């Protein structure tokens, strides 16, 4: 790993100022960024750690939903969200392994937007709002393809706000070596309809499955999904599974999620 200067601001304003330097990059839990830097795929001159900023930590129930601070770790979400949004807590409790969950954060996960990460599925299906130092971004506008987001240069995710659905579940088929989702499906039923998001499958990152949403909004039972097939055209194909296999898994994972919701 190339050397860099580590800064540890204690407020969002200080972090934003530190990131104004073009060679600076934000560091949250580092569970992806540090391995990336070891491979010399990233070479920031300055790393601005967000982990010492108290305003970015913690889980709170508000009138507009469950607000999760950007540097809240997966382990804390698994515990603290349990009473408010059990499907989200369960998702957080299945990311990586216990040691990774004690360090990895929701903000880091969605700023990176790995196409196989779990949180993007929950955020899209829940119609969550991504709060940054500058603005609020709707989930549907935030994710812009593999490792691409609506974040501007130097913009920091400060929190994610989740509306609470009436019913929800996330089921993933873990890739056993990395424990990322080979395919994961999140289903959330709200009063005005059902939202479905799938991660791990598409070359464009997590996506909403509109046909499944329409079918489940009409009737929230697993039989409503009978015969529904996703085209394999844009699916990821690698040594872990072909595009057709992933397309097939999308329906299997979604059916399991509907049964679990």
């Amino acid at each position, binding site marked *: 790993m190339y050397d860099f200067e580590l800064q*540890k601001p204690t407020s969002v304003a200080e972090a934003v100022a530190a990131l104004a330097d073009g060679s600076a990059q934000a560091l949250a839990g580092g*569970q992806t960024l540090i391995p990336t830097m070891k491979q010399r795929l990233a070479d920031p001159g300055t*790393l601005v750690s967000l982990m*010492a900023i108290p305003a970015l930590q913690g889980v709170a129930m508000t009138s507009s939903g469950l607000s999760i601070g950007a540097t809240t770790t997966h382990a804390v979400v698994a515990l603290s969200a349990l009473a408010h949004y059990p499907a989200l807590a369960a998702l957080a409790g299945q990311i990586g*392994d*216990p*040691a990774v969950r004690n360090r990895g954060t929701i903000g880091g996960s969605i700023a990176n937007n790995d196409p196989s990460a779990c949180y993007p599925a929950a955020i899209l299906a829940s119609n969550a709002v991504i709060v940054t130092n500058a603005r609020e971004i709707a989930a549907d506008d935030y994710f812009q393809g593999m490792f691409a987001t609506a974040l501007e240069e130097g913009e920091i995710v400060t929190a994610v706000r989740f509306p609470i659905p009436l019913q929800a579940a996330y089921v993933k088929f873990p890739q056993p070596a990395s*424990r990322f989702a080979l395919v994961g499906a999140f289903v959330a039923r709200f009063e005005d309809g059902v939202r479905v998001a799938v991660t791990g499958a598409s070359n464009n990152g997590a996506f909403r499955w509109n046909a499944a949403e329409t079918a489940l909004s009409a009737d929230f039972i697993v039989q409503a999904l009978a015969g529904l097939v996703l085209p394999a055209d844009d699916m990821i194909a690698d040594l872990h599974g072909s595009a057709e296999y992933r397309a097939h898994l999308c329906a299997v994972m979604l059916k399991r999620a509907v049964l679990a919701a």
Partner: protein
Amino acid sequence: MKTVTMRVNGKLVSAPTEGRTLLVEYLREGLRLTGTHVGCDTSQCGACVVHVNGLAVKSCTIFAQELEGAEVLTIEGMANSDGSLGVIQQAFQDYHGLQCGFCTPGMVMSAAALLAENPTPSEAEVRQYLEGNLCRCTGYHNIVKAILAASGQAVAAE
């Protein structure tokens, strides 16, 4: 170089660091505490697991400079004060929970974190909790038995 001070296994310690110095390098090279191992260096294998402020983390994937003032527990802090093996370590010996021993420091630290969280885990819970710790010798069975025994639960005889 910045000097970073932490409390490691109850002792206040300091060592010089660069920005890129990982906690495991701080421990092994700065403090010469070589019980914590580097297996994969890609946060997959868990040989480097230590506790930071009471939580198990992979010391190959966290920077030392983020841990000024932290409370760190390593495998060197797991023995009893008279130098005899701690309960988990003794159980690993009794149940042959190691062969080459390379993964053992991480296994013991993960086991300690599990038992702190869940004092009487089921076999399935032990296996689930160890999913971030790889062992290439034992096939895991004796590690799981050792952890169940360390929790005071009965373990089926061979």
